[in-house]
């Protein structure tokens, strides 16, 4: 029995997992239309490499990774490209993504699939291949996996199979039914990073998955570690601590402590990529909650969620849908959004399953939040600082170590939307940081301008003095020789010199045109606009929360 190193805090929300784990994985039917977002991973969006009207094959790359932290996207089925446009996407920002719409032809014609011998090529080649094949973290964060594989002589590879969020069972079912393939996928990651140990962390509420993985790991040297069911043990940092006793340094990466962590479904997709030549075009999605038939489906990326949820037959009193789990998930306002690589679960909500919370009361400093915080923070202090907009103090109390897991809000007897306050404070601090940088830049430019003007003034004065001396000398000469022609010539020369100086000044002015946001390429500008808009939205929601809270306290209802 391996020693576990429990992290602090955690909560036990009702898990609601059995509902969707009764039936085996089913394959969702092929939709007529698939909407593939070019930005379903962290980093920069992929660039479309197809044109409208083009026929594509299943698995064909339709969006190419742009830059290091990016990933490619592929046609989930064969058909014709009908649109490349902004389309609603399941983001916390609520902003649309540039997406490729594919009219499927129902023939499911594949590209030529080429399995690779990953042991034969060097790790950087493998990483390139994984990026080209669109492998990203399928646990929900969708961080491009090839970036994380950039490590060698790793001490421990942690496979995250904890699946701690309530309701979600897609990893559980994957391990039950496809354990051997998962293990083959883990071997790829292990090989790429030269990991000495492999620890597969699974919460003890998944006995069938544990048994199946243990059987599949026989003789591989990998170890299945059963961890207690405690939210958020599936958070990367908390799972690494739990299994290895090591803490990822604040602001650092797991590789700094010789550890890397991949989700179990990501390992599975590495297997499909390397051993079958299939890019990431589908994933398992749990359909559960207020539905007649909760179940896990193998779903093509791009399937409209509104269409997908019908498979589970939502009950009549369904009030809405959540993408992800109830603790960190995203309530969906628009069901036309497509399934993306991060879509692990869709929960139909009802008043019974998600009762409205009582109104927020003042913080009474009961410290239940501090007792529940897996990051060892003092949420009640952070709340106080966030609410009073004392952002400096909030940072001093390590606001940015908050993982927004929601444990604090979950236990709060005053039902304060704590996580919202932290998101608000974080976005405000980021904005201030940006403003500060802009101000620094502006000040630097201003100071340089003053310096330049001063210098020019001095230069001009020097020139004038020189010229005056010259003129005086010439005048002395002229008075010797006499004649006005020379004086006229001197005036003309002076005029020309002035003209030349003006020209020079103009040229200089044009040359020192500021290197600021005015001259950015359109993509960068779009990116900045998007960030600004997301920030504005985050700020708005957070401010509404703050105002609501203040109003609650200041006004009679």
């Amino acid at each position, binding site marked *: 029995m391996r020693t576990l190193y429990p992290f602090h805090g955690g909560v036990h929300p009702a898990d609601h997992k059995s509902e969707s784990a009764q039936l085996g994985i089913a394959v969702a039917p092929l939709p007529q239309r698939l909407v593939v977002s070019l930005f379903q991973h962290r980093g920069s969006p992929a660039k479309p490499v197809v044109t409208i009207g083009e026929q594509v094959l299943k698995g064909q790359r339709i969006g190419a990774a742009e830059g290091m932290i990016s990933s490619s996207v592929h046609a989930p089925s064969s058909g014709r490209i009908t649109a490349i446009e902004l389309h609603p996407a399941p983001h916390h920002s609520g902003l649309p993504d540039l997406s490729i719409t594919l009219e499927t032809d129902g023939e499911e014609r594949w590209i030529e699939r080429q399995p690779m011998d990953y042991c034969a090529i060097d790790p950087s080649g493998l990483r390139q291949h994984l990026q080209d094949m669109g492998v990203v973290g399928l646990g929900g964060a969708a961080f491009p996996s090839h970036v994380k594989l950039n490590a060698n002589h790793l001490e421990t590879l942690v496979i995250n199979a904890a699946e701690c969020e309530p309701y979600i069972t897609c990893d559980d079912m994957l391990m039950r039914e496809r354990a051997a393939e998962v293990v083959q996928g883990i071997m790829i990651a292990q090989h790429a990073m030269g990991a000495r140990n492999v620890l597969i962390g699974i919460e003890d509420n998944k006995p069938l998955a544990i048994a199946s993985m243990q059987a599949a790991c026989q003789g591989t040297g990998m170890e299945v570690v059963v961890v207690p069911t405690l939210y958020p043990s599936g958070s990367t940092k908390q799972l690494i601590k739990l299994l290895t006793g090591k*803490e990822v340094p604040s602001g650092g990466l797991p590789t700094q402590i010789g550890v890397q962590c991949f989700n179990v479904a990501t390992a599975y997709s590495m297997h499909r990529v390397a051993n079958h030549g299939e890019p990431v075009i589908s994933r398992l999605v749990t359909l559960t909650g207020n539905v007649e038939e909760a179940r896990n489906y193998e779903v093509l990326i791009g399937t409209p969620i509104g269409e997908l949820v019908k498979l589970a037959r939502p009950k009549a009193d369904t009030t809405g849908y959540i993408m992800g789990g109830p603790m960190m998930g995203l309530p969906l306002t628009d069901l036309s959004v497509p399934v993306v690589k991060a879509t692990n679960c869709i929960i139909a909500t009802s008043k019974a399953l998600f009762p409205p919370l009582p109104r927020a009361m003042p913080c009474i400093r009961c410290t239940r939040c501090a007792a529940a915080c897996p990051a060892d923070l003092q949420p009640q202090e952070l709340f106080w600082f966030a609410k009073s907009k004392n952002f400096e103090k909030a940072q001093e109390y390590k606001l940015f170590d908050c993982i927004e897991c929601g444990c604090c809000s979950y236990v709060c007897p005053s039902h304060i939307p704590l996580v919202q306050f932290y998101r608000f404070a974080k976005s405000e601090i980021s904005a201030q940081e940006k403003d500060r940088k802009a101000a620094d830049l502006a000040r630097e430019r201003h100071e340089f301008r003053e310096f330049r003007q001063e210098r020019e003034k001095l230069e001009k004065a020097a020139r004038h003095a020189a010229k005056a001396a010259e003129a005086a000398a010439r005048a002395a000469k002229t008075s010797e020789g006499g004649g006005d022609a020379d004086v006229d010539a001197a005036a003309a020369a002076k005029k020309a010199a002035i003209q030349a100086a003006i020209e020079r000044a103009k040229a200089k002015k044009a040359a020192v045109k500021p290197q600021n946001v005015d001259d950015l390429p359109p993509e960068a500008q779009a990116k900045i606009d998007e960030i600004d808009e997301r920030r504005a939205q985050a700020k708005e929601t957070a401010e509404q929360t703050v105002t609501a809270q203040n109003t609650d306290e200041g006004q009679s209802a």
Partner: protein
Amino acid sequence: MSMNSPLVAEQSTVSVIMLKVLGALVPAIAVYVYFFGPAILVSITLASVAALATEAAVLYLRRYPLRVYLLDGSALVTAWLLALSVPPMAPWWMVVVGTVFAILVAKHLYGGLGNNLFNPAMVGFAALMISFPAHMTQWPAPEMLAQTHWSFTQQMDFVFGGMLPADSKLDAVTMATPLDALKTQLHLDREMTDIQSGKIFSTLSGKGTEIIALLYLLGGLFLWQQRIISWHIPLSFLAAMFGTAGLFYLFDSSQYASPLFHIFAGGTMLGAFFIATDYVTSPTTLLGKLIFGAGIGVCAYIIRVFGGYPDGVAFAVLFLNSAVPLIDAYTQPRVFGHARKWFKGSKE
């Protein structure tokens, strides 16, 4: 459904917490009635009504929603704790004045629920102790020791109208508390064993009062079991008082009472489990709670033994309340992923 995660929450509320605190006091109150008569129920009722009325008036003035804040139960907890700290034989207006002062000044002038620096019940108590010291000593004698028995009506006549029964004096039904008796007798140069042979004293501390203290302890253990309070403040409080008292007792047991006597006498148990543990006015870090509890234990002992008042719990609590922001700032725990520091000072 809220539109921001987390979308689920535990169904616990502030009201539930406060109700459990009140519930944990009930057994001790029942025993109080058994030993000292039903007058305490009248003072609890008076304090409750005064607290709710004051709370309602201030909430109205501050334009807060009345119902939800009145139902949070915090005003009732203040009222009950104050009523239990004031002699039930004191005039009716005393507990009312104390409660109004507690809610109005100590709670709402500091910003209301969650914002007060000092424990409201203890502020109310201190105000009464300083303003009406004589009335604050009118503790009833346990019924088995009282020279005469007043009927409930006679008690109420006295509490509400100051009328003594025809053939009786106040001294006939009141008595010095064990702590009070100890203090005055020691001034008369009497030996501890001699003093403690007095009829008010018993095995642990005083007759009747020691049983009430035991039930406060049980109620506190219930709150701990219910995870309403953590063990840190009560344990460090009791341990510090026991330790300090133990040192003096070892030094000279003829002049200093036993440590067991001290933790079962006066307001120790009520203070350790119900007053010092008040969320709003105690530290939030675990180390801070230990320091806070220990500080109260030591200060209460010092005030009790060397100060002018027979008991020191209330003043010790208020004193340590004022140190809470400082304690919190200097006891911030290490955050996940940060290096361990020996001195965790705030930058300010």
